[in-house]
């Protein structure tokens, strides 16, 4: 059975991953919609920027976050009066996770939206629905499989986030020390191989559970709309 400390690490990791995904989901949906449906000058560049975290070394992302959102950084200073602090907090770990998972999430949601027949949207409009209503009643429900896939992919990616997190918010037990960071810490301590192994097994189980949940989610929804 996992120890109390181990459970705390898992709980923190889940919290970081959950909020990372939940907070970035609306923006990801918006970005995916724009990429799937709109044509505008500079779209290729926009697409590239969205995908940047996928190709950049995570350490670079972490460093840029530190520069921008650190206490002395422009964004950090801007947000501090509102009580929003990212530096060396679990919220910073969530921000790092959100940014690293963002391209995966956008990609999956975009595919989901592109799979929705635009003529269904036209049909909804002739029935009197404004664009916003069409989006929430037709486009989004039908893009559901892409949405679920995107959220799970980003969640799993967040659970495994290491480089950007450790660079941006360091490795503080109980605050920013998520599963990968804890495993890394144990590998640096002589004789802690077993502890690292136990956490690694927990990590594998967690990822499997996330995948299974998404599978069940999509399937149930899929059956309902085909039946």
């Amino acid at each position, binding site marked *: 059975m996992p120890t109390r400390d181990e459970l705390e690490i898992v709980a923190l990791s889940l919290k970081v991953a959950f909020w990372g995904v939940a907070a970035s989901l609306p923006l990801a949906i918006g970005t995916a919609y724009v990429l799937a449906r709109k044509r505008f000058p500079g779209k290729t560049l926009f697409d590239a920027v969205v995908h940047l975290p996928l190709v950049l070394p995570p350490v670079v992302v972490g460093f840029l976050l530190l520069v921008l959102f650190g206490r002395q950084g422009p964004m950090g200073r801007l947000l501090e009066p509102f009580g929003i602090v990212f530096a060396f907090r679990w919220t910073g770990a969530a921000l790092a996770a959100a940014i690293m998972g963002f391209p995966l999430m956008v990609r999956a949601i975009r595919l989901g939206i592109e799979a929705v*027949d635009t*003529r*269904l949207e*036209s*049909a*909804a*409009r*002739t*029935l*009197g*629905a*404004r664009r916003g*209503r069409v989006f929430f*009643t*037709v486009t989004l*429900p*039908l893009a559901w499989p892409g949405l679920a896939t995107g959220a799970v992919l980003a969640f799993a990616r967040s659970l495994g986030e290491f480089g950007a997190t450790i660079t941006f918010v360091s490795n503080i037990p109980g605050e920013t020390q998520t599963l990968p960071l804890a495993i890394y810490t144990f590998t640096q301590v002589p004789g802690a191989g077993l502890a690292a192994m136990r956490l690694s097994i927990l990590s594998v189980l967690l990822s499997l559970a996330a995948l299974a949940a998404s599978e069940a989610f999509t399937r149930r929804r899929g059956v*309902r*709309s*085909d*039946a």
Partner: protein
Amino acid sequence: MLEADVEIERGSFRVEARFASNAPIVALFGRSGAGKSSVIEAIAGLLRPRAGRIAVGGRVLFDAAAGIDLPPEERRVGYVFQDDLLFPHMTVRANLAYGERLTPAPERFVEARRIVALLGLERLLERRPATLSGGEKQRVAIGRALMASPRVLLMDEPLASLDAPRKAEILQYVELLRDELRLPIVYVSHAIEEVTRLADHLVVMAEGRVVAEGAVADVLSRADMVELAGRFEAGAVIEARVAGHDEAYGLTRLAFPGGELVVANVDALVGEPVRARIRARDVALALEAPSKASFQNVLEGVVHSVGHEFGAIVDVTLTLAGGERLVARLTRASVARLALAPGVRVFALVKAIAIDRRSVGFA
């Protein structure tokens, strides 16, 4: 009153159409690619014309000069698409309610119960679109469009993806709607039978332009229709009334000023107006009425014109006693043998079973 005057550019394809009609059913007819769909998409607001004006019942939906361009959701135009386009994630009931909920109560003129009964949807309400047959889907799609209380119903080849029995079924429903709801309908089709049966006012399109427009019988009997509309077979349309049924032989007699037609049983009451389309290749001509022949229909007329005299086939247009037109497609050899020329008295022979039953419909 429906008025459309649009100039549409779709890439390199240009569509220019202008027509106005008060008829219950206006048909846009022409082969695929003639620009019919572009015109009704423009009426629905799904496509923006480069110039022009569109008005339904005096309400301007689009006017390029005046800078009016209502979005589709404000046009109150019912649209039935070629492939039903029902919302797959909703039940039939939710599909039907979608537009109804978005219609302000004072503007609703249809009741859900009435539409459901009219289209026979009672037993489908809890089902999902994927479990419906093609005909059922199209009925639901028509119902969904009607529930938004539209001021005009646009139907874009609504029968194109259905088999023959389903086509006949939906056609009956369309006729029912016209009679029950008194809603103007714009019906787009490339099928001559559907157009003959349904339309009151016909707009023929070819290569992005309106090439003929007017009452169905007039337009379809024009000798140049073959060239104008292409593919479909030459023929004529006769407006008649049901004079009686011959139950024993399963025949129906149709009376019109210039004579009487016997056709295979038509499901209509005596006295009802109907339209029958007679294909040119089903009409034979004789200089004397045959005495011992199987032809049920022998119609007396005068040759009005003889078509192009080259090739093996010639279309001969007749004028019947009541002024109706009939077209006979003959070999050039026969035309020569009978010395057919304008003014010659002839008898047109038409087999009862040759009259396209699908085109016989309530006018």
